[in-house]
């Protein structure tokens, strides 16, 4: 790990000023950053420790019915907040399906949004990676890439965003509050992460010094609580990143889908909102056929980036399944195996 200066600002403004300089990086829980630093993938000159800043670890209900989650709220604290889990069950389930209990105890809301890809060639400093070193090439493109992107990728980069949390968040129109050099601004989460294009190194809309201070769920997000699920296919039962995942949230009125939200994880460089598929679902009865149609629509632009064509079919199937589960209703308690196909549920949900 490279030597660095350690700075512990007292206020958000001090933090932003300290982090705006070249070579500076924010340190929150560090569960991803330290991993990257130990692998020499990230070699910052200065760490700006925001964990001691006041006021960023609160979960607040706002007057307009929105929920504001401070960027330093831990994944575990959020998922285990009873009121939160009841109102946004798919988010809680996604959080609890990620990483391990130890990591969730410290990993923060803000940090989760900004976690880096698990692409092995990004992590391996001896490999060529346009994301790590602009213009160096992409060794994943012809390499071991069965887990890589099938949507939104480019010849420059086929990496995926690994977050579980972001998938239901983006489905529920979460908004990111950012403090920067020019004060506070907010953007939809869907606009935070960028697709790679020719500049995969620019992963987000953040500018130097920008600090995510909160994530906000608009009032409407609560309306899906009765029919919201997150599902994740993994290569072991727990403690594994998604091969593909999906979040589905439905508002069902009089036997019809009044509104649908759908997003995919593990398929692109960003949590992938499937708006066209949502449109298909709006106003119709929740049937297997319409879920199939939505799944085809959600993946209509997908193409393999390597040995991963199966992910397209798998993504279609997980969309159908997640919609089916959501339509069946949110379980009273988050399953013992969150987001797992093996979550104990009653009644046959499989074809």
């Amino acid at each position, binding site marked *: 790990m490279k030597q660095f200066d350690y700075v512990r600002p007292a206020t958000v403004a001090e933090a932003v000023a300290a982090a705006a300089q070249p070579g500076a990086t924010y340190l929150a829980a560090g569960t991803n950053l330290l991993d990257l630093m130990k692998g020499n993938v990230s070699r910052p000159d200065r760490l700006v420790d925001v964990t001691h800043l006041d006021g960023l670890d609160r979960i607040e209900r706002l007057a307009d019915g929105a929920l504001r989650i401070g960027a330093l709220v831990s994944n575990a604290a959020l998922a285990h907040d009873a009121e939160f889990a009841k109102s946004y069950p798919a988010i809680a389930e996604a959080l609890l399906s990620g990483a391990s209990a130890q990591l969730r105890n410290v990993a923060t809301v803000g940090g989760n949004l900004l976690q880096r890809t698990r692409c092995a060639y990004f992590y391996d400093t001896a490999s060529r990676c346009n994301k790590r070193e602009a213009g160096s090439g992409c060794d994943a493109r012809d390499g071991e890439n069965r887990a890589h992107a099938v949507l939104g990728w480019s010849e420059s980069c086929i990496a995926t965003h690994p977050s579980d949390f972001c998938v239901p968040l983006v489905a529920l129109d979460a908004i990111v509050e950012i403090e920067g050099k020019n004060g506070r601004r907010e953007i939809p989460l869907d606009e935070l992460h960028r697709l790679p294009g020719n500049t995969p190194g620019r992963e987000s809309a953040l500018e130097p010094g920008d600090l995510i201070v909160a994530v906000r769920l608009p009032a409407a997000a609560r309306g899906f609580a009765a029919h919201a699920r997150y599902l994740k296919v993994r290569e072991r039962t727990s403690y594994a990143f998604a091969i593909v995942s999906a979040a589905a949230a439905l508002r069902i009125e009089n036997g019809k889908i009044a509104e649908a939200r759908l997003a995919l994880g593990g398929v692109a460089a960003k949590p992938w909102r499937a708006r066209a598929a949502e449109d298909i679902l709006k106003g119709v009865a929740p049937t297997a056929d319409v879920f199939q149609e939505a799944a085809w629509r959600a993946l209509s632009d997908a193409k393999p980036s390597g040995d991963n064509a*199966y992910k397209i079919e798998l993504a279609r199937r997980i969309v159908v399944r997640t919609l089916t589960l959501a339509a069946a209703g949110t379980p009273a308690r988050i399953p013992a195996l969150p987001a797992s196909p093996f979550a104990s*549920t009653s009644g046959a949900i*499989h074809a």
Partner: protein
Amino acid sequence: MPELNLTSAPAHLRHGSSIGQPMTRRDGVLKVRGQATYAADNHPPGMLFAVMAVSSIAHGRVTSLDVAAAKRHPGVIDVMTPDHKPQLAIDPEIKTNPFVFRMEVLQSDEVRYANQPIAVVIAETLEAATEGAVLLAPRYEMLPALVGLDAGESFVPPVVGVGNPAEIHRGDVEAGLAAADKQIDAIYETPPQYHNAMEPHAIVAHWDGDKLQIDMPTQGLMLSLGRVAELFGIAPDKIHIRSPFLGGGFGSKGLMAGPPVLGIMAAKLVGKPVKLVLRREQMYGPVGHRAPTRQRLRIGADADGRLTALDHHARTVSSTFDDFYEPAADASHTLYAAPAIRTSHDAVRVNTGTPLFMRAPGEATGSIALESAIDEMAWACGMDPLAFRLKNYAEVEPITGKPFSSKALRACYDQGAARFGWAKRSLQPRQMRDDAGLLVGWGMGTATFPALMFQAEARAAIRGDGTGAMEIGAHDMGQGAWTALAQIAADAVGLDIDRITFKAGTSDLPDAGIAGGSAHTATAGAAIHSAGAAVIAKLADLATNDERSPLFGAGNAGVIARDGRLIRRDDQSRSESYTEILARAGVAEVEARGTGAPNPAAMEEYAMHAHGAVFAEVKVDPELGQIRVTRMVGAFAAGRIVNPHLVKSQLFGGMIWGMSFALHEEAVTDRRSGRVMNANLGEYHIPVNADVPPLDVVTVEEHDPHVNALGIKGVGEIGITGSAGAVANAVWHATGVRVRRFPIRIEELLKGL
């Protein structure tokens, strides 16, 4: 480190005190308190930290290292390179005995595999040494890397495993296949796997003049001692190795590898104690692995489902500079009564660290292919897989025709199947579902592992205060040597286990052989048993030759040792305590040595194997293809069970490794660079707690008078065999999709779902 003393306090829950009792681990309290001292926990005064820099290419040469940049980093003391290092007494490329593997200890700038050590940075802090290694920024001259099972011309290795012929046959395989009513011809692939013991390889080396003190996990204290002595040109009695606990070994700590040698060299270079611990990613290279295989099985069966021929060929790899060949096809030697059997191997050389023994080397790899193929043949014959195996039950060892020294496999099949409820299995695949609609499949596999014996010696003593001592340089890597061997020792000297001092785990004790081949308890146990008998004989001499003793005249054969007394066999009212015997003789203690060794005559006459039957249930999501094992039952016959509590744990562990083999483990190698791309524990998947279902183990009673004096066959490795195939076969039974490439990946399954 304080001297380990496992006798002074009740460090365990006692349920009894001798062989066969389910005692809890005697080192349990130390381990649950964090007081068990593993190598990297040592910190002698003045100790420095050494960190290896490793190669990021798989083949070529290091052309430059920025030593100056590393040395500029505050706290860096020195950088050991091929140009700046202590000289070794012998060339590390020379194989001085069959258990010496070539190692990279900076003897040249040549790179022969990725993650090969190319320099060592020594610093005052771990942080400085770690960054120093990065600052070396090596440059290379790169040569094309040989990667994969088709990397080049194949050849037939001179031997496979430890001295087995590469090709063996009995009967006419081609004729058997030609005469068959049904034939299977299938190819199975297994990936490279890495031992990944939880404890990374570590050494703390401390030179004191010409004396060398080493803390290092090793499965072979004496082999390591000998290797260090010859490499550094010092007498073995100047070296002291302490290895009281291994944080897992699985074969990777059996033989001296390069990194600990580098630690000793670094300590010599700087003249201070040095600690060198491998980073997790550095364990994917210089410390061994299980080689990949591609296995072709051709099997014939007649109309009644009797095997007519079994042909098992395995392709594997070794490194470009040394030889170890995974003896995968040998798994077909012992289990099924085919009248014609042929096993053969070939290999290619690749740019990899030399493969090594990894828990059930050959047996595990071969077993998953053989058990899959047998399952396929049972299906082809329209037979239940258990009925098919019973029909082809080997009453004598098929490849040699020798009788088995004992074989309770039929009882394993019966008891395991009954416990599992196998009779309710549908013959057809994809017939069973659970309440949630998940596909359910049941599969089985036969387990087998040879009952081996190595050489060992032990020293026993009985002291004037009525206590005893047993000393043997045995190794506890988790299997429970501190407990099981002490149980054998207690019986051997006729004392309660709390009345003996049991010493193990250091190189100044008698040679216990290696902890490998599932043979450690048998081998060390036999030595302990024999040392105990010898010391009791000496004590008996003192008593029976002394007319003042109530045992006078009983003769050696006329007394038995129990509870600290010698008792006249023909008149149990006449006895005398050890204390009384020694006091009257005016002797402070009596001492004797004993040995354990294979019995060549018995080996000539009998085939010696442990056996078992494993039954597995999996559930598979019918659309998503995710797999979960939900139940496993294993029934094993492994001779005498010294400690059922620990044996159960060993067998559970093996079964989990089998599951891991079938579903999880794989080192993903970049086909261009030869580098392992998942050299970590996040993406090299081993099972987590949630992967492991309720497990059930039955140990089947088996008395074997031939394997060794104690009748022990060993349980360390057999659990993997059978289990891997059982899980794979259960996946087929659940889905109807036969995947022949392991681990079974979702994309392979999806093709058929």
